[in-house]
């Protein structure tokens, strides 16, 4: 069993030019999510200064490609992990700062941290002093294609796929929510040291391995007694690099629909490290 994106959603997405790369499903999903984020944010057509940071998975190729390869036909692309980033950036004409982070969960949170850093204009490779005004950050992955799945088959997880991208900006203007806090924590779940955040009414837990599910829910319950707990892994399977970003997108949806005000998204990937992100709705 796998949690797959409906083929109708994937239909109509463009092939890369020149057509020498196999476009992994995660690349298509990243392109779709990025286009949706750009459209919803209403960001301009001139996107030279807009950046993109993505958590990306161990890319793969379709079985049909492998078969053609074995038969001595067309050589499929070597797996290029950052294709979701470079293809999407080229498709949208993004020329700002950017980077791809290999992720089985945690790397996507590092991608978000770099995006935030680029917005804030601090030190580092991401940003010039003064910062970047508009940044996209998220994750995309598909573990339903054969190659990654072969590596992951022994783990207690459901293959899945997905992508989610946030449009982040500083200053006034339309906003769905405020990104209040983002961090990573290391070690076993019961020893995670996370920041105290008050008035969290909802916690989304987004884990990739089923054995961590109970532990993560227990941790969330202890951290915010009385808050509603939503288990994303139960619904979406394990799209690894996309998992935390799907949690952020789900939180935005809860906030936008008035079903939550402050949401904490706790993610945990195969690396074992925690992602900890807090999104808060507008003051009423």
């Amino acid at each position, binding site marked *: 069993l796998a949690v797959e994106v409906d083929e109708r959603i994937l239909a109509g997405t463009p092939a890369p030019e020149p057509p020498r790369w196999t476009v992994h499903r995660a690349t298509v999903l990243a392109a779709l999510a990025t286009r949706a984020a750009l459209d919803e944010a209403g960001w301009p057509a001139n996107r030279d200064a807009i950046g993109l940071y993505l958590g990306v998975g161990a890319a793969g190729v379709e079985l049909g490609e492998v078969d053609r390869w*074995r038969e001595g036909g067309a050589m499929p692309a070597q797996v290029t992990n950052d294709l979701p980033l470079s*293809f999407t*950036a080229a498709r949208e004409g993004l020329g700002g700062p950017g980077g791809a982070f290999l992720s089985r969960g945690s790397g996507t949170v590092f991608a978000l941290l770099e995006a935030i850093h680029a917005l804030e204009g601090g030190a580092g*490779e991401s940003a010039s002093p003064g910062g970047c005004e508009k940044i996209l950050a998220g994750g995309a992955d598909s573990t339903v294609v054969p190659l990654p799945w072969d590596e992951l088959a022994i783990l207690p997880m459901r293959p899945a796929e997905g992508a989610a991208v946030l449009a982040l900006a500083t200053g006034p203007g339309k906003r769905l929510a405020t990104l209040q806090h983002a961090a990573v924590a290391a070690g076993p779940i019961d020893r995670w040291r996370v920041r105290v955040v008050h008035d969290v009414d909802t916690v989304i837990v987004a884990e990739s391995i089923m054995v961590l599910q109970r532990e993560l829910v227990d941790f969330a319950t202890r951290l915010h007694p009385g808050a509603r707990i939503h288990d994303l892994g139960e619904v979406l399977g394990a799209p690894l690099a996309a998992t935390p970003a799907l949690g952020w997108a789900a939180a935005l949806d809860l906030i936008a629909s008035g079903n939550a005000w402050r949401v904490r998204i706790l993610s945990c990937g195969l690396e074992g490290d925690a992602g900890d992100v807090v999104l808060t709705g507008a003051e009423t």
Partner: protein
Amino acid sequence: VNAPRRWAVISGAGAVSALGKGLSALHAGLIAGAGGATALSSPTPDLAVAAQVPVVFANATWLRAVCGPNLRLPADGGVFRDRKVAFAVAAAFEAWRSARCDDRELDAWLVMGLGLEHVALEERNRVAAELLPGHTDAVSQSPARLHTLVDLAAVTVRECLGLRGFTVLRSGAGVSGADAVAHAAALVERGQTDLVICGGADAMLHPTGLATAARLGGFSPAATRSACRPFDRRRDGRVLGEGAAMFVVELEQRALARGAVPLARVSGSAASLAIDAAALVPRALAHAGRSLAEVGLVVTHGEGSPAGDRVEANGILRVLGGAAAKVPMTSYKGAIGHTMGAAGALEVAAALDVFAHDRIAPIENLGEPESELGLDLIQHVPRHARVDVIAILARGIGSRSTALVLERADS
């Protein structure tokens, strides 16, 4: 607001390249013009030569020989079936030792650049029997699998050094090694950690990698040692290389307190989703608090492709203007090839020699510089000069670029 800057320095470095094992072999080979391509044992119609690391079996035995008995090796020697894993471990161990790190530094983070990860076709049943005894039903019916874990080099470095900090994996082929160094310095500068092992490793000289390189295109058809000729009017393409470079990047005060000798400061960086790395230099210099006039050397991406080198030269001219003819420029790819995920890191490693010995290696195989490019390209012999600020340019497949600024540690 007015807190003093947390300078990130390179306090240890290690390298494996076509010039041999070790940072000193890299530096000496570049100065001596000892690099270049050699014949592939299994050439393809598109690639006959590559800049190959001069070791046949890069495995646990080789690692013990080059690193000594103190290196902790993984129980599963099978991890070394991918050459880049051993290259990464050798380079990381050299960096770790030269920075005088010991068990007190095991909380270090690891930031590694990944290359073009490859798949290889292997028989499902053999793989299942080898890796998953008793669990063959868990393996899908797919006839192919990833040749190695995508991040096996990072996993193995972490295990061999016993690191306990976070691991961050930068993906981006030609820029990922430079991104890893920049990211490590940023982590130190921001105060997220005080010490990071970082760098890149890659090895594509296997059937899948060579076939992919052919599909990528842009490689020199020449079958000679001098196949890669950056900025030469006769240049006709890149040459594939392999290797690794790893560094200890840490807070300057911490390095000094431990008695380590900083080799350089990583003082500025900038990255973008556009292809023009030179356009990033002003941003990287602003981050470093330096001006264009202070740049004493540009280490170009300079891969030897007819169009790519011209585009890069034009970018440099746009940024430096008339000063471009007076700022020395070099490229290391004529000697060590394009090492993909290791390229940016190996260029940082090579540039450390400039600060150490006040000399700049020439561009190997540059016999007839394309004069129309208007650059001060170093040719034939090393140039002796004191350089305080170096700009390093990196480009990746798929429109990615990174610029790094290194400066003398005592500047």
